[in-house]
């Protein structure tokens, strides 16, 4: 187990390192020079040299990358005019555009993306497991057909299309909801939820269908197993069989999926956030990319990569914890 953990963590660190190298390399192959962009119009050669030095662009690329990694682990110092500016670990540098620390920018935006992802995931799980269970027990034939149709549709609609249609129906035609605008949870929980309802629904429509399908397959499979037949023969009430056995069997694969899907929602939040105008990490990325704001882009990419890697590892561990048949090697 310990050996597995060590190997798993080492693998994850390697993947993140690879990711950092790729993103860094990409931006140095880019034709635009971030120093010229930052310096702006009427830039004299002397000022350009100063800007370059302040941004750390006067060093060789490998040296810059090395300093970047050092900053991530131990923090680093930036020359800022006559003084020195210390950036504590985990240091992702300062935005070329706004000169704020990237870590602060990310911390600022993360609650929005997290609200979006966690809410959407909870909604998907409730809707998906409910529909899947009912459809697996074959209580309502029509539900079966509906789940099938939704699964197909879920594979076939991009989230921004669902979002546009929801806005069209609920904000333009029915006028039941205001156009979403992010309100922090701590300011007003009700406004937070009502503003996020449409983005959550847009994401959940797609996600829930997949959960429903998995739950149904799991329920049907478990109900056909010998231990269920034995339980029925012993006269255990059907209700208890469903809750204790069928549902539990169906939930095992879902638990692992939840972690992975949460990370996936966070990374695909770029689209949802742009669609609904939510100021999350995704929107930060789109803005940064348009302005060649290298530290911010690297920061967002590493953060999303980190989330995916952690989620995958967590999924494996949880899977082993709830299913004793799984052996970690």
């Amino acid at each position: 187990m310990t050996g597995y953990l060590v190997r798993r963590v080492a693998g994850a660190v390697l993947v993140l390192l690879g990711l950092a190298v790729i993103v860094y390399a990409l931006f140095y192959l880019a034709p635009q020079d971030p120093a010229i962009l930052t310096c702006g119009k009427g830039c004299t050669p002397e000022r350009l040299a100063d800007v370059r030095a302040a941004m750390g662009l006067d060093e060789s690329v490998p040296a810059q990358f090395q300093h970047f990694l050092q900053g991530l682990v131990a923090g680093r110092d930036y020359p800022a005019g006559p003084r020195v500016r210390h950036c504590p670990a985990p240091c992702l540098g300062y935005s070329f555009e706004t000169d704020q620390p990237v870590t602060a920018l990310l911390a600022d935006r993360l609650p929005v993306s997290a609200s979006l992802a966690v809410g959407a995931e909870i909604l998907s799980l409730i809707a998906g497991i409910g529909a899947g269970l009912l459809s697996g027990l074959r209580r309502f034939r029509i539900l079966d057909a509906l789940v099938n149709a939704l699964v197909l549709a879920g594979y076939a609609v991009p989230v921004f299309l669902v979002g546009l249609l929801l806005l069209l129906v609920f904000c333009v035609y029915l006028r039941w909801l205001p156009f979403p605008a992010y309100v922090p949870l701590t300011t007003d929980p009700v406004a937070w939820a009502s503003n996020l309802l449409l983005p959550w629904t847009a994401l959940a429509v797609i996600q829930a269908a997949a959960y429903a399908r998995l739950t149904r397959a799991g329920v049907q499979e478990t109900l056909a197993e010998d231990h269920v037949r034995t339980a029925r023969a012993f006269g255990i009430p059907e209700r208890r069989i469903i809750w204790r056995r069928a549902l539990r069997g169906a939930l095992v694969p879902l638990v692992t999926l939840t972690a992975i899907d949460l990370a996936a929602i966070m990374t695909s939040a770029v689209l949802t956030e742009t669609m609904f105008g939510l100021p999350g990490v995704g929107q930060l990325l789109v803005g940064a990319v348009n302005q060649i704001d290298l530290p911010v882009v690297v920061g967002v990419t590493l953060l999303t990569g980190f989330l995916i890697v952690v989620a995958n590892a967590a999924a494996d561990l949880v899977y082993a914890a709830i299913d004793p048949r799984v052996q970690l090697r």
Partner: protein
Amino acid sequence: MTNPSVAPPVPPRARTVRHRLLRDRGFLTGASIALVMVVVALGAPVLAGAAGQDPSTYHDTLLDSARGGVPIGSLGGISGEHWLGVEPGTGRDLFARVIYGARVSLGVAISATVLQVLLGVVVGVAAGLGGRIADAALSRLVDLVLAVPSLVLSISLLAIVPTSWPRPALLAVVIAILGWGGTARISRGETLSLRTRDYVAAARVAGSGPWRVARREILPGLAAPVLTYAALILPSNMIAEAGLSFLGVGVRPPTPSWGQMLSTATTWFRADPMYVIIPGGLLFLTLLAFVLVATGLRRVLDPRQSEVLL
């Protein structure tokens, strides 16, 4: 399908497969819609010519300048001349733009899928047949590709490439490079199981080199699983293209694509909902068609998996 005597894995009952596909209602529906879309995309210039329109002429007279450039007339200005109405703000013919957009959407999705399959199969078979070191190295590479946040990275990639590069080809390459991991993993797994079969050992003993073994013994056995997987990633590649164009890093404005039209539609949808419904509906219909093809193929070629993965 190849001649049964050359491709021995499960004898490829090509005729049974074709027979069962032709009786699968979902597959047939999906395949016909997809075929129509491909024909429309290929024949876009002819069709636009038949309608007497082209995708780039502005028609200012058809727009209501008092309402900020919304098309005059009901349903986004649908008329005998403009079959699907005109684009708000520019007055360009929507029918022409939508069918030219189909070329981009389908072209990018199909080329990206082909590239992914080629890359994935080559790496997967090499990992499966190569020695332990090759397998370990290639598998780590596949892990890296699978772990990369592909949407985030493709946005960054597309933003830094000079605008003069041909966008659609670039999109296909970027989507393919970030998305071949799944095909590689499947090909490797199948290769590992195929290489232990007796007929592969027999071919080896008979003196076939690794190239010949890969080509003659392994590849035919990979056809079914790779084909079903490819059919499933085609629609997700199409969604990727639409998403990137929606975010403004995909196809550039003069060239129409469905995702890019939906992106402009976000500013117009209150005044002109048809501008959402037409490209959005076509995108949905085409995606649904390809998903139906994929599920049909899976039902016929890989019945064990179809319940869980669909």
